[in-house]
């Protein structure tokens, strides 16, 4: 099916979303979470995990496969429709349905729909890009009436070895401007260094945030850490993390994992008849920016996140004080502060994020930041950013249930240069 063009809400003034409160999240399902796929276990492929997640989501919502009329996914889980699997493909393939990359490290809506035996699907779309944009696309599609009961899987895979490793001495294309000087993740460290210089902070002051995220993530049964590394993570661990590029340590980088989640998105009207309490979607807004020159600067990170925050407030009709739960993307952890300060959640202004981290951001305190644990607490699943707000607003977050009255939740990701904001509420109004 053709790729959607121009569905994003990214032109100011965006105005209140035309489908505000008329679209709802009603079910979620998760596969287990592995560190990597071994390349041979057919019951652990990304496709197999997407099927497990989809079936769990339908069960959660109390619907049958025959009720599903749309599947919207991000086949490779990455921006630009890329898949980490491209780094390993092509490879020897297997018997159907694993006779191509589709189903192994890349899961299209077409593949999943066929494997699940969905007979009444009228809308398929595999171009959801990163997780927040995928959800925004699905909310818009359901609001626009392209489908009414939609499965929204998000597969995100990892195989053996390191990816993003550039071999050789040839630097063509964009690499000609960076590789001769060895520039890469130094960009993250550079902006963080600018932040610390401007506001008088230092990297150690990130520790309370990342440690709290790990605590939260350990309370989520699908988290990579809850499943595989349940040991406590301390501030001492954090400050002793090895540098990747100064300003960015190994503990600011999310752990790549192999996992899939799936959501059921439907109209507010249909949601009333389903098993779970609906979580209403009040808004989605998007934004993509380009550095003025060779590198992204702190000035641009702040300018872009300010635009995104203003757009989200304009699109949802909310003010900072209306947000009970705020979940800014944290992979890399040192980016969360730009969103937190831009949105002014709990009154946090520019340069104050690290002071805020030093206060009570625990689940049971007044400021439960990233109550799902983010990527630092769960691995690079990204899906805690929707599953947790959903469960918090439904009152079924278990040990993670926050003590504040949780009625409105906002999440934003991925990075300041390319992000989507999602706004959820217990009420359609």
């Amino acid at each position, binding site marked *: 099916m053709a790729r959607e063009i121009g569905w994003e809400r990214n032109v100011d003034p965006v105005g209140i979303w035309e489908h505000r409160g008329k679209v709802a999240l009603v079910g979620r399902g998760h596969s287990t979470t592995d560190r990597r796929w071994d390349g041979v276990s057919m019951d652990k492929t990304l496709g197999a995990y997407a099927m497990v997640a989809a079936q769990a989501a339908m069960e959660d919502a109390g619907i049958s496969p025959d009720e599903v009329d749309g599947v919207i996914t991000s086949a490779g889980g990455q921006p630009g429709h890329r898949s980490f699997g491209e780094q390993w493909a092509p490879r020897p393939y297997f018997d159907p349905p694993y006779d191509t990359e589709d189903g192994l490290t890349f899961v299209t809506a077409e593949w999943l729909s066929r494997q699940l035996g969905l007979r009444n699907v009228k809308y398929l779309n595999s171009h959801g890009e990163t997780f927040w944009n995928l959800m925004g696309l699905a909310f818009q599609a359901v609001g626009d009436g392209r489908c009414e009961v939609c499965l929204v899987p998000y597969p995100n895979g990892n195989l053996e070895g390191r990816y993003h490793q*550039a071999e050789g001495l040839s630097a063509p294309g964009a690499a*000609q401007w960076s590789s001769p000087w*060895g520039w890469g993740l130094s960009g993250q460290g550079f902006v963080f260094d600018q932040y610390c210089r401007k506001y008088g902070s230092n990297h150690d002051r990130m520790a309370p945030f990342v440690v709290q995220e790990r605590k939260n993530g350990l309370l989520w049964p699908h988290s990579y850490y809850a499943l595989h590394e349940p040991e406590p993570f301390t501030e001492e661990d954090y400050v002793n993390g090895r540098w990747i590029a100064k300003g960015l340590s190994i503990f600011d980088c999310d752990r790549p994992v192999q996992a899939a989640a799936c959501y059921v998105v439907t109209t507010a009207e249909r949601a009333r008849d389903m098993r779970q309490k609906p979580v209403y979607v009040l808004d989605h807004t998007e934004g993509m920016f380009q550095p003025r020159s060779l590198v992204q600067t702190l000035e641009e990170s702040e300018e872009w996140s300010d635009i995104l925050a203003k757009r989200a407030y304009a699109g949802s009709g909310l003010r900072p004080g209306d947000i009970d739960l705020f979940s800014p993307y944290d992979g890399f952890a040192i980016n969360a502060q730009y969103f937190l300060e831009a949105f002014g959640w709990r009154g946090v202004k520019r340069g104050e994020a690290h002071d805020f981290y030093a206060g009570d951001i625990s689940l049971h305190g007044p400021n439960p930041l990233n109550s799902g644990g983010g990527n630092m607490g769960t691995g690079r699943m990204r899906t805690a950013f929707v599953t947790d707000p959903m469960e918090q607003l439904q009152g079924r977050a278990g040990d993670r249930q926050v003590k504040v009255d949780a009625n409105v939740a906002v999440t934003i990701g991925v990075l300041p240069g390319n992000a989507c904001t999602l706004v959820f509420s217990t009420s359609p109004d």
Partner: protein
Amino acid sequence: MPRPIPIPDDLSRPFWDGCNERRLLVQYCTYCDRKQFPPEPDCRECGWHFHLTWIQTTGRGVIIGSSVTYDSRIVAWHDQQPYLNAVISLEEDPVIHFHSNLPGVPVHDVPVGAAVIVDFIEVTPGQLIPEWKLA
């Protein structure tokens, strides 16, 4: 040290040719009176290519920040770790940035705010790239 070698393309060739003449060039839109680097097919301001040309810069800049890379994604750089990555802002137009490894500057003692001037180093016979040194 062998390091990645830039591969010029149609868009970037004037820049790399300029480096080989020890001239630091950036794109310039004569209509918008605006510099642009790295080069793009069109001026980002007016959206057209008609008025895009190349001009020589002063080659003077300021260090606006840095990082130190310990675990590079670029394999050719692994032998040099940890190495310095600085960002240089062009004196006459601070929006324009360049990369530098600031040869000779201690990696953990970078004088942010200090003035620098462009130099050129050979990465392979026949190809110079811009580097920067303290003014």
